[in-house]
């Protein structure tokens, strides 16, 4: 190889190194979504619900039925149908919902932010309390602190969501009047805030409508706290066991040998290495919350995706079911990709 060849190849390789990672990222995301679409498509075909009957009703004549079937493209080979389905989804067309009579995409744009807002607040509460609790329990392993935290965690697993929701409503809404009742906002304020993101807290803050903000907050705080409590139980338990594993490592002894204060041993030496594992745990709980907690959404009349999906399922509203499934799948993909990116940021061993 001559010198000039080496010199022209080097920049090309450098360019490839810079272009390839983001390209690979886009490709994997695209392939994952295609797989997701294939699955929802297959589910849509195999369920024993006739989409034609859902449109024409069961008293239609054979001719009407056939015409509708033709119009819906169900005579075409499934490859063509799948291609059309993918094309529609890419253009944001998820079909009409039978039960609401609106475009599924519009429905989802309305219900998903409601769930997103509650789940985000819930996970923030779960992380803000669960992580320190887990660290504290590990640092005081076997003492009463550990026991109390264990019992709180156990309660988070054992208590049914609807029961906690109902008791919370009776106590904090009906008796104490500390929080707002079911729904996202007080009725007389409903629709008063211009919709931008669909997140009421954010929209009312942008609009500077602090009365609406206060009302939305008082409505969301109880269900979000209950969701937070459930994710807290899981996060605290996992944090505790991750921390115990790290606290048994040799480098913890090294830190103590250096005379590092115990608080720093805990947060710098033991906590830093577990951040990657915690991200997986938090990501999974967040994704779980974003699926929509049907129980909590029902008890609090929360117009979220869990409620929407359940109603659609009960009404055999397949377009809505598939659309919601797609959104939930997309949430999982996004959270997975997000935690992958965070891994590389937080763990030097994962960077190469």
């Amino acid at each position, binding site marked *: 190889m001559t010198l000039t060849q080496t010199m022209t190849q080097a920049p090309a390789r450098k360019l490839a190194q810079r272009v390839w990672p983001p390209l690979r990222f886009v490709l994997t995301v695209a392939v994952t979504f295609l797989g997701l679409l294939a699955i929802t498509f297959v589910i849509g075909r195999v369920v024993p619900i006739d989409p034609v009957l859902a449109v024409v009703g069961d008293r239609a004549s054979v001719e009407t039925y056939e015409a509708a079937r033709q119009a819906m493209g169900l005579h075409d080979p499934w490859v063509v149908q799948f291609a059309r389905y993918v094309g529609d989804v890419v253009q944001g067309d998820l079909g009409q919902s039978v039960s609401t009579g609106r475009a599924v995409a519009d429905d989802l744009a309305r219900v998903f932010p409601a769930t997103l807002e509650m789940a985000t607040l819930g996970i923030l509460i779960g992380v803000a309390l669960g992580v320190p609790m887990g660290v504290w329990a590990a640092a005081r392993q076997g003492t009463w602190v550990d026991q109390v935290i264990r019992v709180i965690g156990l309660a988070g697993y054992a208590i049914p969501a609807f029961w906690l929701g109902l008791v919370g409503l009776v106590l904090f809404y009906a008796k104490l009047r500390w929080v707002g009742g079911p729904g996202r906002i007080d009725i007389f304020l409903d629709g008063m805030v211009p919709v931008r993101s669909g997140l009421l807290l954010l929209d009312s803050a942008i609009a500077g409508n602090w009365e609406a903000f206060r009302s939305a907050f008082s409505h969301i705080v109880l269900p979000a706290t209950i969701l937070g409590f459930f994710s807290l139980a899981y996060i605290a338990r996992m944090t505790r066991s991750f921390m115990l594993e790290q606290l048994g490592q*040799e480098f913890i*002894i*090294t830190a*103590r040998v250096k005379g*590092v204060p*115990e608080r720093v041993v805990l947060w710098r030496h033991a906590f*830093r*290495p577990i951040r990657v594992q915690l991200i997986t745990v938090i990501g999974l709980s967040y994704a779980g919350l974003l699926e929509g907690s049907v129980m909590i959404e029902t008890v609090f009349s929360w117009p979220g995706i869990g409620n929407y999906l359940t109603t659609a399922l009960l009404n055999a509203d397949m377009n809505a079911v598939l659309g919601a499934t797609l959104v939930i799948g997309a949430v999982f993909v996004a959270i997975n990709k997000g935690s992958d990116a965070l891994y590389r940021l937080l763990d030097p061993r994962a960077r190469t």
Partner: protein
Amino acid sequence: MSLLAVDNLRVTFPSDQGPVEVVRGLSFALGRERLGIVGESGSGKSMTGRAIMGLIGAPGRVTADRLEFEGRDLRNLPEWEFRKLRGARMSMVLQDPKFSLNPVIRIGDQIAEALEFHTQLSASARRVRVLEALEAVRIDDPERVARLYPHEVSGGMGQRVMIAMMVVMEPALMIADEPTSALDVSVRGQVLDIMDDLVRRRGMGLLLISHDLNMVARWCDRILVMYRGQIVEELGAGALNTAQHPYTLGLLASLPKLNEERATLPILDRAALDGFMAGAAR
């Protein structure tokens, strides 16, 4: 005045069968010299090191008639006072750098930590000291190594980093707990050489804990032979051939020789040994 005075040191752990004594009445004094402790695994040598560093946490219990370091009584020393000694006046090199270095903190920052909690130095002054410490353990490009993470260096270099971390505050006592048994044979001599050089030049006391009789004999001035939590014999480094105790003799006999004529190496006759020790105790 000796650097470290230990009299009747005992370390006890509770178990289902009642308390188990892993160190049983150890007494020795250490000046600014190199003292070796040899013994098989489970003989209590590592626990001795950790007891001196005050690192035996509950449920373990440490008692002694005397445990003095630089004239200070270490028994019942409050934890915050002990912390001021650890890393500053006394330090300990652990066995395997693969496990004893924090995987997610840069090497330079890990070395700087002792300075961070024991001095008022500014970050830039700490950095200078860190680079000096890395140079002292014969690392050629300290600037680069300081920026690396532990998984990016070899075992031998990792252990040199560990030593740098432990001498950066120039302590008076260094305990080295099996500092080379996790390393390649080819770099062991080099690591011990560096450690020896630092210890001598700074007039530190060294407590070298190992199972390797020959190594300890080569790098130490005096040797304590430990068996079942007790010192069974004390030897001058050059005087391995004067060993009297059956345990030491057994250890020496079990070492393979270069021009080996024996078909099998002898193993310790523990029944006879225990009988001997029971007789000696009486």
